[in-house]
């Protein structure tokens, strides 16, 4: 298939490993799914910190289950990316360890308190789920299949996150103030989660024309605002004055994007923020620590297939 044919045929779950896809499509899909897989890994690593901070055994159990989910999502997504034949899982994991792999902005900020749990588990995961729901109709079928399972599990993460937020906002005055303070730090990051405006997003047009993406960054961010601002206010959080949020003619909400720090965003997107280095380095050391497990599996694979060949000859 050439690119013109791909664009003509693009639709939900239209293409799969049996189709002969042009390199441009396979590379774009790999870039997108690898970014998503990396984000699941880095999100899982960030989230595991909350198990230590969680105030009760129930919260600790739920949090470890969530972390296990996220790493499972990464496994599924690396497999979906591999089906494009551009990169192997080992390559993608090494790229992440070496600081070349890209991932969501919110996972570049190390966390160190329980007040941050609802920022990630409710707002960031809620935003992620908005995006993931639209990706159920991506054109690369293995990616869409992974989204079915991801969205099935993600509902628990968002509801658990909301439950933490509610619990904290019913706490003492001091607790509520700490949550508000933490929210003000995270709010701009959360708004940037959906990426830059459409005209500044480099890969948007192509990904949309071949059906990999079905919704623009702007549309996702605006629908997120419409759903999550009322939630924040319901629990008594105050939306900061800047970045300015305004109501558009159709009654939906949008953000004045010039109020956001895009220099920080682009530094993060190059993995050059201080937090990026900390988060990437901490995961790299863990990848190195369990290298012996991967080596053992690889060695077993080769000896096992040798055995099979011997048995067959």
């Amino acid at each position, binding site marked *: 298939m050439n690119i013109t044919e791909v664009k003509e045929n693009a639709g939900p779950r239209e293409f799969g490993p*049996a189709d002969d896809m042009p390199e441009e499509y396979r590379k774009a899909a790999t870039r997108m799914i690898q970014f998503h897989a990396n984000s699941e890994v880095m999100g899982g690593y960030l989230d595991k910190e909350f198990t230590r901070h969680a105030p009760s055994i129930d919260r600790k159990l739920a949090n470890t289950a969530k972390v*296990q*989910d996220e790493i*499972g999502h990464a*496994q*599924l997504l690396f*497999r979906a990316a591999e089906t494009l034949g551009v990169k192997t*899982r080992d390559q993608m994991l090494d790229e992440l360890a070496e600081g070349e792999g890209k991932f969501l902005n919110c996972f570049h900020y190390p966390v160190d308190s329980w007040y941050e749990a609802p920022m990630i588990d409710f707002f960031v995961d809620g935003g992620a789920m908005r995006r993931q729901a639209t990706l159920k109709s991506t054109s690369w079928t*293995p990616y869409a*299949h*992974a989204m079915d*399972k991801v969205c*099935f*599990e993600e509902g628990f993460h968002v509801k658990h996150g909301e439950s933490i937020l509610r619990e904290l906002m019913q706490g003492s005055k001091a607790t509520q103030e700490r949550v508000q303070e933490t929210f003000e730090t995270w709010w701009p990051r959360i708004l940037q989660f959906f990426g830059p405006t459409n005209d500044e997003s480099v890969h948007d047009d192509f990904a949309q024309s071949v059906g990999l993406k079905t919704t623009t960054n702007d549309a996702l961010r605006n629908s997120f605002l419409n759903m999550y601002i009322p939630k924040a206010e319901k629990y008594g959080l105050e939306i900061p004055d800047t970045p300015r949020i305004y109501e558009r003619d159709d009654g939906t909400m949008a953000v004045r994007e010039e109020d956001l720090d895009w220099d920080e965003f682009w530094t993060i997107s190059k993995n050059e923020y201080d937090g990026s280095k900390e988060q990437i380095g901490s995961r790299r050391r863990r990848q190195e620590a369990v290298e012996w497990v991967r080596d053992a*599996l*690889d060695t*077993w*694979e080769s000896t*096992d*297939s040798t055995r099979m060949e011997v048995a067959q000859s």
Partner: protein
Amino acid sequence: MIWEVFRQESAGDTYEHVGNVHAPDSELAEQFAEVQHARRMQTNSLWVVPADEISEVGAQDAAFGGRTDKSYRWAMTYNDIDASFAEEVADSEEEQREAARKRREALAEEGDA
């Protein structure tokens, strides 16, 4: 090595493809399939199959169901007979009507293309 995973929800259900896993041998493939594909969803059983062992025949390669008029083998053709006397006959006719509709749509789409 890649292994394809098929999940059966309850005893007696058909197995549905749910994804695949990396594993060096079938024992580990079963373990990985269990963790990645049956940890949360209700599951009765898994099939774990080497991906290389699966062969596919696509609609481009085969004329599934043939290309000639075979209306004589559809229940709806005999519409001067009322199927409602027995529920199972009526159900079967309904299933056939649905299958025929999908097939007509697919052929029409092919004609358009």
